[in-house]
C-alpha cells in the first residue's frame, strides 16, 4: 500500500546500531511506519544519549501510561526518524518514583517531564524544579489524573526563568484582547525590552486525555476534534490513523484523499487567518480586512464542500464520514485563493509591513532542533520536517508534497512559508479532487491493540497514540497537537532582541492555539 517496503533495522543503520544488544525493534500494531522496543530503566539514559546524538532523530513526544501491574508507570518516548520514514517508540517500565532526567539530554522533553509528574507522580531524577502544566494551583477540588497524584508538589516555579536586576514582571492575562483565547503571559521587562517571558496555560485545561479513557474510538473522535478546533481535521486524522494502525484497518484510497482534501482546506483557512492576524498586529487594517475577506470565503468553501466551516465531522475511523462536494472546489475555491494571493501580493510589496516582520521573533535552526519544533515555525528556521512527505501514508504515497522552507527563522520567514504553503495546498487540492474522493468505513473493530497516528496540521505534525482494550475501548489515548510542541519556543522567540510590542506579531506568526496545548 505505501511505498515503504521495509523499515526494519536491516536497512536502517541508525536502528541497527541502536538495536544492538536488545534485539530488533518490532512494528507497532499493524503499521510498518512505527517501530517500538522496550528498554529497561537502567538503559534509558544510554539510549536517549544515542538518539540525541543521531542526526535526523527528533524527540517527538514523551508521555506515560499506566503499566501492568497498575501501580507501575510505563514511560513512552517517541522519536521521529524523519530521514528514515519511521517513528520509534521506546517503552520503559519504571520502578519507583524516579527516572533519568531526559531533558538534560534532550531539552525538548522538559514540558512533558512536568506533565508526567502532574499526571503520574513520577519525576526525573535530581531536583530540577518542574513547572505547572495542567493542574491549577487553586485546585482545592481534587483534579482527576491519568495516574497517581504526586506526593509532594514544588512551590510555584517558572523554570528556567528568573527575574533579576532591573527587570520587573508584568502579568498579562488570562483574559486578553477580544476574541482571544485565555492565556497568561508573565512578561519580564526592563521597560521596553522583553527580558523574559513565561506562559501559564492551565486556565483552560479540560482533561481530554482523561475523558477519552474507556470510550470507544468512534465516540472519542467527537472530543478529539474539539481538542483544538482549528486543527480538527489533522488531530482527528492522527487519532483515526492510530486506531487503524492498532486494529489493522485500512482506509480505502478515495477516503484517504477525502481526508487530505479536508486537511489542505484546513491549512488554507488557518494560513489566511494567520496572515489576517499579522496585519492586525502590525496595525495594517486594510490588509487585515482583505485577508479576512479571503478567510471568510475559505470558510464558506469548507461549508459548501464538507458541510462545516471548520471541517468537524469529516474524518471517520477507517475512512471519512463525509464525501466532499467537489463542485465548489472548482468554482469558489480558486476565487477565494486568488483573493488571498492578491492581498498577499500587496502585503509583500508594503515595506512598512515587511519591516515589522523582518528580524522579529528570530528562532535559529539550532533552537528549532533542540526544542523539537514542528510545522511552519520549524520550516521557516531551516528545519525541513513535514509529516506529509517524511512519514508517508496514503494518499501522500501517490500525491507528492513539496514542502516550503525558509532559512532566517524570523516572522518574515514564517509569513513567506505561509505563502508558499498556500500555493502548494491549492495545487494539492486540485490534484486530489481530480483523482476523486469518497466517504466510507467508519467503525472500528472491537479488538485490542496499540498504534500511533500522525498528520501534518497547519501548525505542524499532529500525533496521537492509542492503547485499546479487548472490547475496543480506549485504555490510554495520547493527543499531541502541534501547539503542544511549538509554544515552548515562544519565549525564546520573544526574547531575541524584541520590544514587547512585537509579541502580538510573533504570536500571530506562530499561529498556535491554547486549546491545543491545554487539551
Amino acid at each position, binding site marked *: 500500500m505505501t511505498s515503504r517496503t521495509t523499515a526494519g533495522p536491516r536497512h536502517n543503520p541508525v536502528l541497527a546500531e541502536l538495536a544492538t544488544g536488545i534485539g530488533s525493534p518490532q512494528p507497532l500494531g499493524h503499521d510498518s511506519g512505527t517501530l517500538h522496543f522496550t528498554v529497561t530503566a537502567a538503559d534509558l539514559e544510554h539510549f536517549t544519549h544515542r538518539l540525541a546524538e543521531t542526526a535526523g532523530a527528533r524527540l517527538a513526544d514523551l508521555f506515560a501510561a499506566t503499566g501492568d501491574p497498575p501501580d507501575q508507570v510505563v514511560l513512552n518516548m517517541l522519536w521521529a526518524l524523519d530521514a528514515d520514514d519511521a517513528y520509534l517508540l521506546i517503552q520503559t517500565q519504571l520502578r519507583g518514583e524516579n527516572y533519568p532526567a531526559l531533558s538534560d539530554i534532550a531539552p525538548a522533553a522538559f514540558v512533558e517531564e512536568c506533565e508526567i509528574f502532574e499526571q503520574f507522580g513520577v519525576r526525573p531524577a535530581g531536583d530540577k524544579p518542574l513547572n505547572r502544566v495542567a493542574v491549577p494551583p487553586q485546585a482545592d477540588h481534587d483534579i482527576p489524573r491519568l495516574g497517581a497524584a504526586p506526593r509532594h508538589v514544588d512551590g510555584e516555579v517558572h523554570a528556567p526563568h528568573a527575574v533579576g536586576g532591573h527587570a520587573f514582571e508584568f502579568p498579562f492575562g488570562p483574559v486578553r484582547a477580544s476574541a482571544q483565547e485565555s492565556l497568561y503571559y508573565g512578561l519580564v521587562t526592563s521597560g521596553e525590552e522583553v527580558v523574559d517571558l513565561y506562559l501559564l496555560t492551565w486556565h483552560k485545561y479540560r482533561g481530554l486525555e482523561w475523558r477519552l479513557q474507556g470510550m470507544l474510538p468512534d*465516540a472519542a473522535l*467527537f472530543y478529539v476534534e474539539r481538542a483544538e478546533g482549528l486543527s480538527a481535521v489533522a488531530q482527528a486524522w492522527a487519532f483515526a490513523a492510530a486506531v487503524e494502525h492498532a486494529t489493522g484497518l485500512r482506509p480505502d484510497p478515495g477516503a484517504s484523499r477525502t481526508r487530505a482534501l479536508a486537511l489542505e482546506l484546513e491549512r488554507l483557512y488557518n494560513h489566511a487567518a494567520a496572515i489576517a492576524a499579522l496585519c492586525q498586529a502590525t496595525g495594517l487594517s*486594510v490588509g487585515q*480586512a482583505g485577508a479576512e475577506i479571503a478567510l471568510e470565503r475559505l470558510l464558506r468553501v469548507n*461549508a*459548501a464542500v464538507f*458541510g462545516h466551516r471548520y471541517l468537524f*465531522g469529516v474524518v471517520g475511523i477507517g475512512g471519512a464520514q463525509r464525501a466532499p462536494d467537489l463542485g465548489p472546489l472548482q468554482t469558489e475555491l480558486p476565487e477565494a485563493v486568488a483573493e488571498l494571493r492578491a492581498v498577499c501580493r*500587496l502585503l509583500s510589496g508594503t515595506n512598512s509591513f515587511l519591516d515589522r516582520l523582518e528580524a522579529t521573533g528570530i528562532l535559529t535552526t539550532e533552537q528549532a532542533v533542540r526544542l523539537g519544533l514542528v510545522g511552519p515555525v520549524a520550516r521557516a528556521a531551516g528545519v525541513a520536517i513535514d509529516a506529509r512527505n517524511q512519514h508517508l501514508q496514503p494518499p501522500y504515497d501517490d500525491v507528492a508534497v513539496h514542502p516550503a522552507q525558509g532559512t532566517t527563522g524570523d516572522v518574515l520567514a514564517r509569513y513567506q512559508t505561509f505563502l508558499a504553503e498556500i500555493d502548494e495546498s491549492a495545487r494539492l487540492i486540485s490534484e486530489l479532487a481530480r483523482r476523486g474522493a469518497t466517504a466510507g468505513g467508519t467503525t472500528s473493530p472491537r479488538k485490542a491493540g496499540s498504534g500511533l497516528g500522525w498528520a501534518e496540521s497547519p501548525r505542524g505534525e499532529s500525533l496521537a497514540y492509542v492503547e485499546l482494550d479487548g472490547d475496543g475501548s480506549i485504555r490510554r489515548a495520547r493527543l499531541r497537537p502541534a501547539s503542544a510542541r511549538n509554544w515552548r519556543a515562544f519565549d525564546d522567540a520573544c526574547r531575541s532582541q524584541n520590544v514587547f510590542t512585537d509579541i502580538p506579531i510573533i504570536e500571530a506568526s506562530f499561529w498556535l492555539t491554547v486549546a491545543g496545548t491545554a487539551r
Partner: protein
Amino acid sequence: MSLWFLRGLRRGVVTTRYPKTPPDPWTATLPTPPSFVTDRLDIATADALVAVCPPAALRREGLELVYDVGACTACGRCLVVADGAAVPSGQIELATQRREDLVKRVAIEGGVQ
C-alpha cells in the same frame, strides 16, 4: 499605500445585509440541528439516536424524545442512524433568552416495537 486605497475601492461591498434581509443563501450549507420525523420514530430508533448522540442532547422519557437544541452540536451523527427519522432542520437563528425554550419534547409516534 495608494495601491491599498484602490484595492479598497475595487472590492465593492461584501457586507451582509442581515438582519434586514434573511440570512444569505450560502448559510444553507451550514450544519443545523435535526428535526425529527415523528411518525417514523419508534422506540428502537429513538434509543439508537440517544446512544449515538455524543453530547447527550437526546434522551428518551417513555414515549417522548427529550431533545436539547442548545446542547446539540449539529454533528449529524443522528441523521446517519435515523433511517429517515431525522432530517436537518435548516434553522440557524436559534438564539433565545429562555434556555428552556431550547428543550423540545418530541412524540415518538412510530409505535413500540
